[in-house]
């Protein structure tokens, strides 16, 4: 199982370099085993360098950069071992508009192998979806599903408009 672990670790490290640079539009990553001699106990150090910046301690990253880095790692894991479905609840909340678009693009790409269910308030993520479901509480305390359609111009104004229950 040691070989399996090392093999998977290296594959994820390579995939992470690709997903990170896709989401950040460049930059570098490194995944390092803290204790390579003891694979059962070793930790994994994550070092990232957004484009144009110096290598930094992860804790100094901004809120949006952390969310994007974590997303890149998740997609790297899914590249190595695809899962049949992926559910993400408002992972795009800290992202600015250009980064939400990049997130929506990578989800689109991965949706060839994996089913996605994305809970979001962001317009660009809604536009990337094949289907939209609205959840409302017309009666206080009781959730109902409604089908929705996007109005207005693409990536522009207009909320998701509730069509019918």
């Amino acid at each position, binding site marked *: 199982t040691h070989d399996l672990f090392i093999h998977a670790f290296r594959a994820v490290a390579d995939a992470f370099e690709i997903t990170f640079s896709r989401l950040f539009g460049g930059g570098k990553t490194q995944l390092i085993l803290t204790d390579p001699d003891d694979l059962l106990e*070793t930790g994994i150090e994550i070092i990232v360098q957004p484009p144009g910046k110096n290598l930094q301690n992860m804790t100094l990253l901004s809120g949006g950069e952390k969310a994007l880095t*974590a997303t890149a790692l998740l997609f790297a894991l899914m590249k190595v071992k695809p899962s*049949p479905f992926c559910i993400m609840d408002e992972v795009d909340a800290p992202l600015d508009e250009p980064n939400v678009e990049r997130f929506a693009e990578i989800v689109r790409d991965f949706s060839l192998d994996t089913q996605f269910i994305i809970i979001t308030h962001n317009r660009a993520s809604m536009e990337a979806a094949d*289907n939209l479901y609205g959840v409302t509480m017309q009666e206080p305390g009781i*959730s109902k599903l409604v089908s929705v359609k996007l109005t207005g111009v693409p990536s522009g104004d207009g909320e998701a408009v509730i069509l019918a229950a």
Partner: protein
Amino acid sequence: MYLKRLELQGFKTFADRTELDLTSGITAIVGPNGAGKSNILDAILWALGEQNVRSLRGSRSQDVIFSGSDKRRPVGMAEVTMTIDNSSGRLPLEFSEVTITRRAFRSGDSEYFINKTPCRLRDIYELFMDTGVGREAYSIVSQGELDAVLSARPEDRRSLFEEAA
């Protein structure tokens, strides 16, 4: 393999029977704060056998059962059924469609079913073993939990990679 349909009844704010039909592509779930979006993700985690009440944002196992509202009385049972398309044969069962059902009663009793046949929780865990689906999988990210992928101590990250091995 993908999630084809989700049926909820008496689960959190879904007091009435609710059905969510899904395609294999991308589905976005939208709606106001407090409407019940994250409760849908909780329903999927629960149906997959989640036993830790904190992962479902509750403090007792009965917290998943609809506890009433201004105009409605609490109900005695919560039930969630997930229908999974198994035409790829990834789940070790002969069927092209597999349903998983979980029920909880105010008394504290629980019931589990695979294709309407009563089973134990262990059977559900074994069904999803090694498919990349399940409570522990990296492919389900609850609200506010994305940063946890990075911020865990280096030793805690190992299990993510083991999952991908």
